[in-house]
């Protein structure tokens, strides 16, 4: 059981001056799992995720991603993960195909692989006719789906999604989650932050961050039981109301 842990964090902490953004968090994520990372704005979700992705240096604590240390082996971690940031991350002034070619290329994928994969994704998303259009001309929902496809283009073992469905309509959100399930079925571990509590229900396990700490971590069903709540919404409210930190 211990061998299938793809992410481990132990007392992981990040301080910015006197401000402790992430406060001694510990958790494990198993292979193939959809791990929900919940918390109010400013609870420290993004900071925690950035540390795991090698974008931010932890202040203290230990963590490994795909078996590699977040202090010393970030470049190895980067080979094994995909990342979709809160900010939109495709190039607006490149076409859909050019974006895929670029990101595939810098991950060292072969021309043949890039071509096949691009065709597969466009076909799968029913976007064949949009392949040569500039990304900026596409609606947000499509862009988000494309960004996710690009994040897992190089077939990483783990993908980190930072509020991937922010500002997207309910239908597209549903479709987006179908894509997540599909990726999960293909053995990709999903680490996702979200504000939407219905999305939390889709996760295998959920952690709830309050003021930089992880206050709860379990399956959605178990969490509802523990907190005697009818929905994840209620669980979240019960926990998030304890927050004392002002929003940043």
């Amino acid at each position, binding site marked *: 059981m211990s061998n299938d842990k793809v992410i481990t964090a132990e007392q992981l902490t990040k301080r910015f001056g006197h401000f402790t953004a992430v406060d001694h968090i510990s958790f494990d994520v198993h292979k193939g799992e959809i791990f929900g990372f919940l918390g109010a704005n400013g609870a420290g979700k993004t900071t925690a995720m950035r540390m795991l992705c090698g974008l*931010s240096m932890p202040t203290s604590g230990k963590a490994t991603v795909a078996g590699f240390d977040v202090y010393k082996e970030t470049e190895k971690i980067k080979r094994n993960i995909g990342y979709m940031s809160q900010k939109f991350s495709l190039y607006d002034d490149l076409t859909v195909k050019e974006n895929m070619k670029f990101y595939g290329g810098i*991950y060292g994928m072969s021309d043949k692989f890039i071509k096949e994969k691009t065709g597969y994704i466009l076909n799968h998303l029913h976007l064949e006719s949009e392949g040569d259009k500039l990304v900026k001309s596409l609606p947000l929902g499509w862009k988000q789906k494309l960004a996710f496809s690009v994040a897992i283009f190089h077939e990483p073992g783990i993908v980190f999604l930072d509020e991937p469905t922010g500002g997207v309509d309910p239908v597209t959100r549903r479709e987006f989650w179908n894509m997540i399930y599909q990726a999960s079925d293909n053995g990709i571990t999903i680490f996702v932050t979200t504000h939407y509590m219905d999305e939390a229900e889709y996760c295998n396990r959920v952690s709830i961050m309050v003021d930089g700490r992880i206050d709860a971590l379990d399956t959605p069903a178990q969490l509802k039981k523990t907190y005697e709540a009818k929905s994840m919404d209620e669980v979240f409210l019960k926990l998030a109301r304890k927050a004392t930190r002002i929003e940043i």
Partner: protein
Amino acid sequence: MRTLKFLLQKEFRQIFRDPAILRLIFIMPVIQLLVLPWAADYEMKNINLSVIDHDHSGYSQKLISKITSSGYFILNDYSNSFDKSLGEIEHDCSDLILEIPANFEQDLVKEDKAKLFMAMNAINGVKANLGGAYLNTIIQDYNREVRMEWIQLPRFSPETQIEVTSSNWFNPLMNYKYFMVPGILVILLTMVGSNLTAINIVKEKEIGTIEQINVTPIKKYHFILGKLIPFWILGLFVLTLGLIIARLAYGIIPAGSFFTIYVFAAIYLLAILGLGLLISTYSVNQQQAMLLSFFVMMIFILLGGLYTSIDSMPEWAQTITKFNPVSYFINVMRMVVLKGSSLSDIKEQIFIMIGFAVILNGWAIFSYRKRS
């Protein structure tokens, strides 16, 4: 190598799709080179002159017509009251006052000497200085003519006269444009090199794509080379465009070889691109990058010897110019274009510029972090 190929492909696609950059690259050199050299002319013309003539004699008339026919002066007003002329200076209508006293002719003829009074508007120091000097020369010339008129046989002249003839090396006609155009070209290259690079990288920071790049296993030097090479090529393109304009519009053909110019420019661009890179690592958004590069550019231009000679700067300012890459390139450009200096003549500058390139890029690479 393959990673670099993808980076360059992406960068060039973005550049060619950005009409603002393309316009900047074409229009900036054309406008700057066609307009600035005409405006940045040190020769003073159109100096407004007020003449107060209390004498109203033949000699005073002759003097005035000699001054106005020199081409440097415009007779603004002709009066017989100093207060009125001073008013003209106060209203900024006049730059210079020449007062011819009563009995000017009489004194000149009878006593062999006469006095003139000159007053200058020193708000524009350069204009006042040069105008005063021009006027002085014209009056002395006039003085000699008067003497010649009286002493028909100059060899009996009691006073020996020294006449100075000068010849201007490397720029025989003292054409100011020959001096300015190479300098303006340098400024152009500097602006294209540092601003475009800095803004390009900071833009990726703003959009958030840089984070996506940072989370890939891309090597730091790959990313940086991917940014530097396109703008290095763009810089050399702007230089070519500038040299063509210099030739077509001003007939400036470098006395030295194009090869020398391009070798130095290639190294210079590396240094300047490093500067742009450095600016981008210290800026969070495009506004900051713009302000920072504007600040640096101001210092570079004013302490670069484009408009004012470095040799006439105070010592401390001269020391600063030694840390200004622009001053070296302006110097080299003028040496090669006007004097025809070759690579061996500018060896020292080349080594210094390599130093700049290494330090600026090293510093930039060091402070560029994939992780915060």
